[in-house]
């Protein structure tokens, strides 16, 4: 490790004098890896991937479909059909590996970028677009797919996840690694600086809550690099809170699956929280409103392209599992079909009516708000028949 460690940092220093370590080249990063960027399976002393090649083909398919959905959403934004889109490009393995490690009773608390996890949980991708098109705020029922609403205030959902996990404890839903329940909280390297995330770590630790903190360290919080958030590897923070932390190659779907599964099992059996740092890279902009050319080097991007999460699985399947080009072509065709459906669904989303939204502020509507609704409806109706 090239990072400063506690004890080597002078006690008093002006911030600009602080020894700033450059962003790590990923060759120097120690993490759990089970499939190299070249598509070679490798062994790790603590983690192994126990599923067969059919499962790996499934992961490949998931990642391709999710990337295609993401690409289509970006295109829809560029064409004015979405107000904004937060791309997951480059983070497919982190999301599919962890998402596929979930059991049907596990609960997910996502950020606004977990399109891959949403896909694993069976959330209709069209529902994700509602938020970005501005027709609703998400508004799927979290109970339908055990997938909470996207949370935009970063880190807030880690506390929700921890509280939910405390509910699982109180319901005696843990205690068995297979049939028990766990909760997984997604967040990013930027959110790791939030008070809420640190409070969630404390809560989960002292209550031994069955929650997995899954941090996708994609190196960038909009324009701020990881060294503005931390001086030690993020996963090492877990030790200070009293639970295990592990860093995994976030672009290796076999490793993210294996590491997530072990952490989830640990939670389900009642052994408490784990912090997983999935070391990855945000290949796209923060959102479609962002311009990463202003703050990062193109050569970094080119470097990470060589570590693409999908390409390495394709290399493995081609070379070691005898999968032919026809199979890959079929996946691409399936992806295009899903993208076309997504586009059609997006364009046919009905425009929302403000009148309806008055009814959702409270469970028990207030007289004042009912009156405002009535007044607004009458006002809006007074324009009926007039052209815009």
């Amino acid at each position, binding site marked *: 490790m090239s990072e400063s460690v506690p004890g080597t940092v002078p006690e008093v220093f002006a911030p600009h004098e602080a020894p700033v370590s450059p962003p790590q080249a990923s060759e120097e990063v120690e993490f759990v890896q089970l499939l190299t960027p070249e598509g070679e399976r490798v062994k790790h002393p603590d983690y192994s991937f126990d599923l067969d090649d059919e499962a790996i083909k499934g992961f490949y398919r998931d990642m391709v479909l999710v990337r295609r959905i993401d690409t289509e959403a970006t295109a829809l934004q560029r064409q004015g059909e979405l107000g904004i889109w937060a791309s997951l490009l480059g983070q497919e393995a982190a999301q599919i590996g962890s998402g596929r490690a979930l059991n049907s009773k596990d609960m997910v608390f996502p950020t606004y970028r977990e399109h891959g996890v949403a896909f694993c949980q069976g959330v209709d991708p069209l529902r994700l677009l509602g938020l970005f098109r501005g027709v609703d*705020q998400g*508004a799927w*029922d979290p109970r339908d797919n055990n997938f909470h609403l996207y949370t935009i*205030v970063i880190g807030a959902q880690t506390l*929700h996840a921890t*509280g939910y996990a405390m509910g*699982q404890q109180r319901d005696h839903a843990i205690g068995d690694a297979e049939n028990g329940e766990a909760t997984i909280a997604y967040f990013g390297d930027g959110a790791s600086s939030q008070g809420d995330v640190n409070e969630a770590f404390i809560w989960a630790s002292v209550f031994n809550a069955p929650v997995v903190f899954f941090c996708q360290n994609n190196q960038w919080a909009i324009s701020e690099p990881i060294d503005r958030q931390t001086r030690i590897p993020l996963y090492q923070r877990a030790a200070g809170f009293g639970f295990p932390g592990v860093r995994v190659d976030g672009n290796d779907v076999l490793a993210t699956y294996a590491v997530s599964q072990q952490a989830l099992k640990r939670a389900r059996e009642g052994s408490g929280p784990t912090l997983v740092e999935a070391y990855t890279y945000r290949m796209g902009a923060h959102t479609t409103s962002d311009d990463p050319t202003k703050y990062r080097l193109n050569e970094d991007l080119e470097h990470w392209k060589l570590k693409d999460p999908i390409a390495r699985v394709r290399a493995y399947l081609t070379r070691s599992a005898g999968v032919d080009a026809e199979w890959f072509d079929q996946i691409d065709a399936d992806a295009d079909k899903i993208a076309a459906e997504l586009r059609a669904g997006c364009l046919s989303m009905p425009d929302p009516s403000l009148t309806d939204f008055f009814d*959702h502020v409270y469970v*028990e509507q*207030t007289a004042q708000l009912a009156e405002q609704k009535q007044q607004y409806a009458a006002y809006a109706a007074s324009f009926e028949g007039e052209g815009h």
Partner: protein
Amino acid sequence: MAKISLGKGINMGLRAAMEADPKVVVMGEDIGKLGGVFRVTEGLQKDFGEDRVIDTPLAESGIIGTAVGLALRGYRPVCEIQFDGFVFPAYDQIINQVAKMHYRSLGKIKMPVVIRIPFGGGIGAVEHHSESPESLFAHVAGLKVVSCGDPVDAYWMIQQAIASDDPVVFFEPKRRYHEKAELDESVPPALPLHQSKVIREGTDATLFCWGPMVKTCVQAAEAAVEDGRQLEVVDLRTISPLDLPAIFASVKKTRRAVVVHEAPFTLGPGAELAARITEECFYHLEAPVLRVAGFDMPYPPSRMEEEYLPDLDRVLDVVDRVMEY
């Protein structure tokens, strides 16, 4: 029939709610063995266990944030914020998460969370322990805001707040925790949570108040009798939503309104009351709606708080103004 204090009323109400519904959990700092710094949760952990009466780490955002998660899981958390000024680390979770969850899910998620906040001054405390931030919550769509002014209301209103499927910020008048009244638990509550009550009938002007100012206003009304004035006192009980029919009915009767609160003057709840009353009762009014409030300064050091807080004399002074208009 037993005489109980306001604090005991809340304690008994919490107990009744916990007995009635196993999903009710109480959480906060020092609420377990200690029973809370005001002893409002005294004895609850002993009887309901540590899983339902949760001593939390000292982090308010964590209290509310985990309460959100518990509510999503089907629980009905009752969170104690130790003092008014300590609620602000949790403000993000309250405003962005608790208040909006039902709305942003188009009604699919309910947030039956109660946030108990001992509020107001008059106990000689150090800073951040005497504030009245009602407006900062009443302004937020998705929250409901109430305050109890007497022990009987304390007992029933906390139970009604816990039964509410909407989030409720429950302001407890900390300097009235030891006020006593007789409670007959077998008599059902006279009012639903979001209705106001006339504490004292009058004909010349109405004093609108809640929480700690209820007692102050009743004392003022009693003193005003010596001046030949019959003041009506309305305990709002609910600040969001306002019980407008009750407010308008009283003003149309007395034709004069004074709003009394400890919260700072500018954009305090009195501003909204004045606007509403003016709009609805314009032709009934003999005088503009006047306000008695805390000053537009941070809560002062406690040796000055008696000057800062609205008291009987300041209320009567403004009553003089509203009568002489």
